[in-house]
């Protein structure tokens, strides 16, 4: 029975690890990767929510309408989510690269232009 909640627990687990990575990161590139990990937790959650026991993929190319399929909506949401991830990652990475070009470091401890 506890197994039935394992996917949600794993989503939370991945989420917290992502947060941990971001908080303790010593390198902005590493931090950006941790953000990506953090996002995968949302995939796990959505996937588990939309799953139906014995359901097949919601593609009626060779199965009749009415067969048990998993929920297509969460998959649509995940597709959007993945594009968002790609976009945000590209932007964050180029910020990091530019910061390295201008400041010569990607260690958040040394990037202290905004304090007080």
């Amino acid at each position: 029975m506890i197994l039935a909640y394992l996917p949600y627990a794993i989503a939370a687990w991945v989420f917290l690890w992502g947060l941990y990575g971001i908080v303790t990161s010593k390198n902005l590139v590493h931090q950006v990767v941790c953000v990506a990990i953090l996002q995968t937790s949302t995939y796990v959650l959505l996937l588990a929510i939309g799953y139906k026991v014995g359901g097949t993929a919601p593609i009626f190319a060779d199965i009749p309408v009415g067969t048990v399929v998993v929920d297509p909506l969460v998959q649509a949401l995940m597709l959007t989510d993945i594009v968002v991830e790609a976009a945000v990652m590209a932007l964050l990475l180029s910020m990091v690269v530019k910061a390295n070009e201008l400041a010569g470091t990607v260690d958040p401890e040394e990037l202290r232009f905004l304090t007080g």
Partner: protein
Amino acid sequence: MSSRTRTAFFLCSAAGLVFVFACGIRDLPPLGDYRGPYGNVVTQVAVYERHTTDVVNAINYDYRAFDTLGEEFIFFASVLGVLLLFRPTQEEDKNGKRESKLEDALPISDTLRVSMQAMVGIMIVFGVYIASHGQLTPGGGFQGGVILASAPLVVYLSGNVKTFEAIISSPLVKLAECGGAAGYAAIGTAALLFGAHFLTNIVPLGTTGDLFSSGTIAVISAVVGMEIAGGFVLLMQNYLREIIEERLRESQ
């Protein structure tokens, strides 16, 4: 905060978060019993209403196409942002002038080069296939676009730096990106001219299972493919421009 206090501080709050999550998760339905109406209704009606077999794409490109419009522009905006961040300063422009007369610098075995070029063809075909069959099989404009975008990269790996430069710096790339993005919004607006609501299907639906079925879904999927492919090529260009210049310069 010093890094140790920060970690300790975070771990304390993480403990709280664990508790909160645990309480919430207990009330979720167990894995595999999805109840909600949305999925059940849409899987019943989508095939008849939209003449498509891939319900996920029916949702992405029609029922909730407006979300996808926003999503495409998220990607578009981030590409714009990257271009803005890496906009060339004056001296980089000078380098740009110089780079034209440089030679290919990557020694690479001909067999590899040939096979790579064959691969480029395969990837383009595959990308177009994925993008055009979205309404029937898994895939669609987005996935196809990404595959298409990685074709020029293989050209680069196969050593034709010049060809690669020619591809990624041609205005067609940007035209594909912007045209794709604008096209999506335009398709939506076109429906208004027919007195329908935004993003309503105005193209004949065709017969389910055909390549040219499902009306706007196919069209939108195509423009999305254009935008994504162009966008990723632009992203790569921004990372690779300098690298290529420097590599060629070092090779002299």
